[in-house]
């Protein structure tokens, strides 16, 4: 499992993030993003995944994440922050992630080996 820190994610462009995620997942790794993707990045990731699918080699990805939270708190407004927060996201090769429990505050994911 590979954890990509929020700091590292913030320094990357959308395309860099997507390429990094896909290259790791295609090699069979499970990637944990400390800070999730934006909806636009998510949809781009799905699109890129579709172009990378190869019969018998790579059948796609599994993503577990939470919707974008818009936290327009008083402090965020004063600091001029956009207030768009995304939550932790787990991405892995298709059929390897199975969520056993997911609620607003936590994701626990069971990783099953093989099929």
């Amino acid at each position, binding site marked *: 499992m590979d954890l990509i820190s929020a700091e590292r994610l913030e320094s990357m462009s959308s395309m860099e993030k997507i390429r990094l995620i896909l290259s790791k997942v295609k090699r069979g790794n499970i990637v944990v993003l400390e800070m999730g993707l*934006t*909806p636009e990045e998510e949809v781009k990731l799905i699109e890129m995944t579709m172009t990378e699918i190869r019969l018998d080699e790579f059948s796609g990805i599994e993503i577990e994440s939470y919707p*974008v939270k818009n936290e327009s708190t008083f402090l965020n407004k004063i600091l001029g922050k956009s207030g768009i927060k995304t939550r932790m996201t787990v991405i892995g090769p298709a059929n390897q992630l199975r969520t056993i429990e997911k609620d607003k505050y936590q994701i626990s994911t069971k990783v099953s080996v093989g099929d």
Partner: protein
Amino acid sequence: MSVIRSLKMNFAVWIKWIFGKKRARIGIYGPPNAGKTTLANRIVKDWSGIETGGISHIPHETRRAMRTDGVIINANGSSIELDIVDTPGMATKIDFREFMAYGLEEEEAKRRAKEATEGVIEAIKWLENLDGILLVMDSTEDPYTQVNVTVVGNMEARKLPLLIVANKMDLPKAAPSRIKAAFPQHPIVTISALEGSNIDDLYVAIARHFG
């Protein structure tokens, strides 16, 4: 006097024509097998009498977006003209072996898988060209999937209207309340696209949200 009045009249008609023209291009989105095409067919047939797309219990039946223009819906005393785009089911993974499990031959399963990946891309491309969407979910399934979250997130980011359709309410395992709990910030209409139950509520909601 009457000239001015008729000018005023014309102006009012003109304003209504420009700003009151209720026409919207609506995409029907959702995971494979949710009932998007069944719903698209029902809407188009109810209001224009035409028969349209193919339906199957095998996922990824629709692999090209199907567009039907100029469907006029009258509900709640208002009228709206819709261009309806029935999109291929969105997924993050596509495995041809899944289709073989439905009894397709390997060759056909592989072709279907290839076309399905292209279909997902086409559905994504259409997101940029819409005025609003109907997000169709199978009420017997877990609503909290990446596809649903991603579609909802994109509509919110674009500030476009979104109406969630909790489909297959006729099935005993249907639990539309789970959909409400997962996406409380959006309007939901519970229907059976197959049997037509509550379909009039959907038309009222469409007129309200996209009109």
